[in-house]
């Protein structure tokens, strides 16, 4: 217990001194910077709801990544899976055939899952069939999906008479995910994120699938002796991860931007990778850490507005937190070893 408290103190001290130095170097008033980040994220319900709208896709991506990490897969292609999910959702939303907004949103939701999942599966097949490491396959597919979304926005889905990288035409208001009055976050998004969190927990901890993924992640050689085919479960886990990412894409499209933009994934996939590693692959920590990162992301916009600092500094602060946490983790692991 004493050691734990020591760890926490050491960790916090490290984070603060590190960020202090960074801000000092950047010539920023340090305490003011912290204060504004804090206020920028929590000063009002509008701001908190903005934090939540970042929290939703982060949580969704993280849940998906828990599955792949459990099978010891580096699903770096999650960015592309978010993008493909968004594209899938948009494809349905653009179809004028169906009149009922609820129905069309439900269809878009399912399609986004399907598209994200398929994109994940693609990376998985590249690994199991083609022998391409999932990191390289994933990165490659990220580029492909980026190219694809650009082509759509610049080509077939461009605004009439306009060819701009800025995005497709705004969705009909009926197709926007609703939010509570005064809130800036789609209620459905929060419900979905919480549901996925619970499902992820159930699948990973209570189902045989979760156990098998754990076994494969620990020892794929041995898994084969239990008649568990690692390939098959690699594909399943990356399919699930892709589907979760796809849902994040759906929410980004229908709840945040209300259109398709080139950077629809907003880098949340990569951020989620970091976050999940930091959590030590523990699902209880996911929503908390996602909230922390989301508030840092949202709060940091104050740095340029109020202090005229480059908001890239928030990335530096984020990096510091991660480094310090990893450092403490490393110390603890070394201590655990005889």
């Amino acid at each position, binding site marked *: 217990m004493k050691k734990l408290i020591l760890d926490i103190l050491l960790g916090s001290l490290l984070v603060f001194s590190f960020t202090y130095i960074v801000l000092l170097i950047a010539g920023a008033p340090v305490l003011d910077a912290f204060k504004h980040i804090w206020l920028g994220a929590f000063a009002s319900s509008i701001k908190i709801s903005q934090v939540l709208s970042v929290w939703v896709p982060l949580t969704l991506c993280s849940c998906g990544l828990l599955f792949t990490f459990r099978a010891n897969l580096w699903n770096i292609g999650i960015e592309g899976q978010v993008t493909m999910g968004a594209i899938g959702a948009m494809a349905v939303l653009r179809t004028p055939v169906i009149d009922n907004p609820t129905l069309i949103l439900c269809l878009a939701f399912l399609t986004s899952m399907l598209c994200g999942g398929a994109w994940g599966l693609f990376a998985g097949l590249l690994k199991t069939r083609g022998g391409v490491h999932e990191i390289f396959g994933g990165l490659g597919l990220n580029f492909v999906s980026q190219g694809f979304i650009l082509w759509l926005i610049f080509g077939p889905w461009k605004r009439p008479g306009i060819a701009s990288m800025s995005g497709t035409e705004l969705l009909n208001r009926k197709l926007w995910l609703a939010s509570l009055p005064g809130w*800036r976050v789609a209620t459905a998004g929060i419900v979905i994120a919480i549901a996925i969190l619970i499902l992820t927990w159930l699948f990973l901890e209570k189902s045989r699938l979760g156990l098998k993924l754990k076994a494969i992640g620990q020892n794929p050689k041995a898994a084969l002796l239990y008649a568990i085919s690692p390939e098959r479960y690699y594909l399943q886990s990356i399919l699930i991860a892709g589907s979760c990412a796809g849902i994040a894409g759906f929410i980004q499209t229908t709840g*945040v931007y209300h259109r398709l933009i080139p950077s629809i*994934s907003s880098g949340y996939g990569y951020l989620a990778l970091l976050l999940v590693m930091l959590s030590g692959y523990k699902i209880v920590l996911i929503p908390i850490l996602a909230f922390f990162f989301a508030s840092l992301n949202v709060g940091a916009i104050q740095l340029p507005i109020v202090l005229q600092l480059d908001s890239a500094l928030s990335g530096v602060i984020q990096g510091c937190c991660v480094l310090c946490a990893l450092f403490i983790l490393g110390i603890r692991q070394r201590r655990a070893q005889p």
Partner: protein
Amino acid sequence: MRGKFTGMFAVLVAAVALLLSPAQSQASADNFIFGLLMVGPANDHGWSQAHFEAGKEIEKNIPGSKMIYIDKVNPADRPGVTIPFLVDDLVSKGAKLIIGNSDDMTDGIREAAMLHPDIKFIHISGDDALNPDAPENLSNLMGKMEYGQMMAGFAAAMTTQTGKIGYLGPLINDETKRLAVSCFLGARYVWTEVLKKDPATLTFKITWIGFWFNIPGVTSDPTQVAKNFFDSGYDVVISGIDTTEALIVADQKKREGADVTAIPYDYEGACETAPDACLGVPYFNWYPGYSHFINSIKNNNWKKEWLWLGPDWKDMSNTRKSSISFKNGKALSGDVQAKLAVFAKGLGDESISLFTGPLNFQDKSVFLKEGETATEMQIWNMPQLLEGMEGASE
């Protein structure tokens, strides 16, 4: 493990919370705060900087006014940040007026205007205010850059030796098409009226990069596009984008011995980046527009307006009155400068009217019949490039 982590996190959050007392400054009553959302960096030597400096000028000249701003408002630079969110934030800091400086912000500003009916909005370059159903608190402001671009086209055509002028276009929309068309008309005027050459010998080519500035991996690289122009015999490149790549490349080529020049865009000081290669710059002065709207708010006579402000022909460089101007660059010869002044005078007294028929569109359909002059709306909603121009219309 789990407990440790949660604990650590809790302490972290608590520490942050304790350190920072929740005190937020409130605007005092007689201050007038306005918020400026810039699509590019505030120091881009182009579009965004022109807005930024106008805002600074307002702060100096309208007592009590204060600008809060944020630049690089675009999804590539600030992923996950939306216009309504930024407006929420600026409003919470006391802003009474929000200026969104990009066509790209149309949807976001429209949404924000609906969410904040008490706050006034100016959207630069849009035309929502022409729509009777649009919210009353949203006005539009734009400068008649068509004149600036005509002068740019004039200067370019007077300078080119090869008869090939390149136009570095941003994305394709009505605005960019009408600006490119104006530029072309200025150049063609030189060819037919000044130099008395066959218009077929003038090459005017547009390459669109896909956005107002370079987004690596997303847009075409403007530096590369400019290089391609110079390498394939174009000796003047006119920039229609917010940043100065064309000028920088021209300067490099000039140092390597090539006789090339460029015309940047948007910002009075744009030539300073590389004065030796700069023919001049057509630029915006947003002060007249901004001050008009701010005064109308202060005097409580705001109304929904669509303002399209042109140059003050008596003195284009008058910062209080003229919204559009052209500043001659070092590379523009004295002879041409004199002819350009005559041309500008002709535009001002309407003795020269370039949007007069016969003009055909790129697809050979008729834009203006013989003797017909385009209306403002015809120019504003330019559907296509013109016959004689190379480049995509959509």
